[in-house]
């Protein structure tokens, strides 16, 4: 059980780090494109690669952001109800969100499968086989679905979810 716990936590963290590296990649790609232009060179496909990095930065970060409480929701009702009702409400929230995330992941998988099957290539100058960048939707969506299910099980069996607000945000409370 602790092994599974450690593996999951490692996955959320690793995906977050990868997402952060994708932000660096966006920066590098855009700078490279500008420098290329200033020096009369071309960097074909740079905007497309930056777009893929953008998608990867978003999807890979979803689960990590969830566990750090970065995704927002309206919590008026959650804060107003007594503990027992709150737990039921949390089960509804995590259950529904997990359902949406699994639904997303399922269709993302088939979307990527058909991209691969049809040999779909990018229409830009990069001519990338699209299933490669599109896979981040399946991986990131799947991780978000796992993270939501993970939290759902915690609410059901332990009474509390595992979302911890980020320390960075607490600096606002000075």
């Amino acid at each position: 059980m602790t092994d599974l716990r450690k593996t999951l936590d490692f996955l959320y963290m690793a995906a977050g780090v990868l997402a952060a590296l994708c932000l660096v990649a966006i920066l590098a790609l855009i700078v490279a494109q500008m420098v290329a232009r200033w020096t009369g060179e071309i960097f074909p496909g740079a905007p497309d690669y930056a777009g893929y990095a953008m998608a990867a930065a978003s999807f890979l970060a979803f689960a990590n952001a969830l566990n750090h409480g970065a995704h927002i929701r309206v919590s008026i009702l959650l804060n107003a109800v007594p503990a027992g009702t709150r737990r039921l409400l949390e089960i509804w929230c995590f259950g529904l969100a997990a359902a949406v995330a699994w639904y997303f992941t399922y269709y993302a998988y088939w979307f990527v499968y058909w991209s691969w099957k049809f040999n779909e290539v990018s229409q830009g100058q990069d001519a990338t086989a699209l299933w490669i960048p599109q896979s981040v939707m399946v991986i990131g969506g799947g991780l978000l679905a796992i993270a939501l299910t993970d939290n759902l099980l915690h609410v059901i069996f332990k009474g509390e979810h595992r979302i911890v607000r980020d320390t960075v945000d607490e600096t606002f409370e000075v």
Partner: protein
Amino acid sequence: MTEIYAIILFLVVLFLLLGTGVWVGLALMGVAWVGMELFTTRPAGDTMITTIWASSSSWTLTALPLFIWMGEILYRTRLSEDMFRGLSPWLAKMPGGLVHTNIVSCTIFAAVSGSSAATLTTVGKMAIPELRARKYPEKMVIGTLAGAATLGLMIPPSIALIVYGVTVNESITKLFFAGVFPGLILASMFMAYVAIVSKTSSSWNPDMETGMSFSEKLRNSRFLLPVLILITVVIGSMYGGYATATEAAAIGVLGALALAAAQGSLTAGSFRESLMGAMRTSAMIALILAGAAFLKLSMGFTGLPRALADGIAAMELGRFELLMALLVFYIVLGMFLDGISAVVLTMAIVEPMVREAGIDLIWFGIFVVVVVEMAQITPPIGFNLFVLQGMTDHEMGYITKAALPMFLIMVLMVFILIWFPEIATWLPDNLRQTPG
């Protein structure tokens, strides 16, 4: 009749999901799914992925995380302190005091970034702690921030104006010029409001800054130098032809890193923290954008926004009545869609109506941007409200109330635009491109 059912159904599901605390992006996907399943025969899952992939892998979107990252870096430098040290001697003695720094900083950053969310996170991260430390009324701090950050859409460069310009085939350069004065006027109106409240409110007693002589003030202004250099470099790169509006964001990050290095606040730790912070904030916004993209598609399939616009077209109103009807229409639509989607979905019907009524399309672009700005701060779906919630831990209701005066000021701005259209049209009419 189907439209009425569709509207009621969308609203019920939306309020149910958002109200019970489902995460905003996922709730939007849920609502969109219900719409797809009930009102069309098209496959909901496939259309969902197609549209979400297209919207989340877009090149123009890359400016958003970069501007957010820039904000995270600047937040970890002395820049915020410095900006306050530089601005406060000048603003502290004004009625309203340092709350004006919120509005002035937003106006300045609006000239660097094309989006409201990026402006909000950059300025908010720096300004909120400083203003709280000086005991300014929380509501004013939050409210002015929510309102003034929308200037990111009005003051060029502006993503909203680019989308509008491309949709109606009007010159984006002209639209950018048209946004300058209305943006500055709107900023002054926010400032005037702050001044009035500070004089009339009993709960207004922040820590006062000590008085300074003019030469001291001038000397303190040197602290503004780093910010001014950064802004000059970013804006200069755009207007000098070195970078497009999207690429300017990358220049901003490099500039912020250089600034941090120069101040000695760039360490491996602060770099990592800024990056992880930017990663999470942009993921939060990306999830909502993904949900909004699917909702936009679902609404498009149901034909709802178009049916409403058709309804207005059928009324055959005069110029002023038409503008009033559109104002109400976009305020209502803006409650449930982000403003830019609302424009894209309805412009096909609205554009001919507006042209027929003899309304200048450049002017109308500014009108639309004010309305798009309002949509950022109206519940239940208001981007700035969401971002501020993430940033301050206040409830939506609290932030909405804090932002309400800013919303009303924007409504007033619409009327000012109608009465004095030259505010928007004078600059683009008189400023020709410099040759070469």
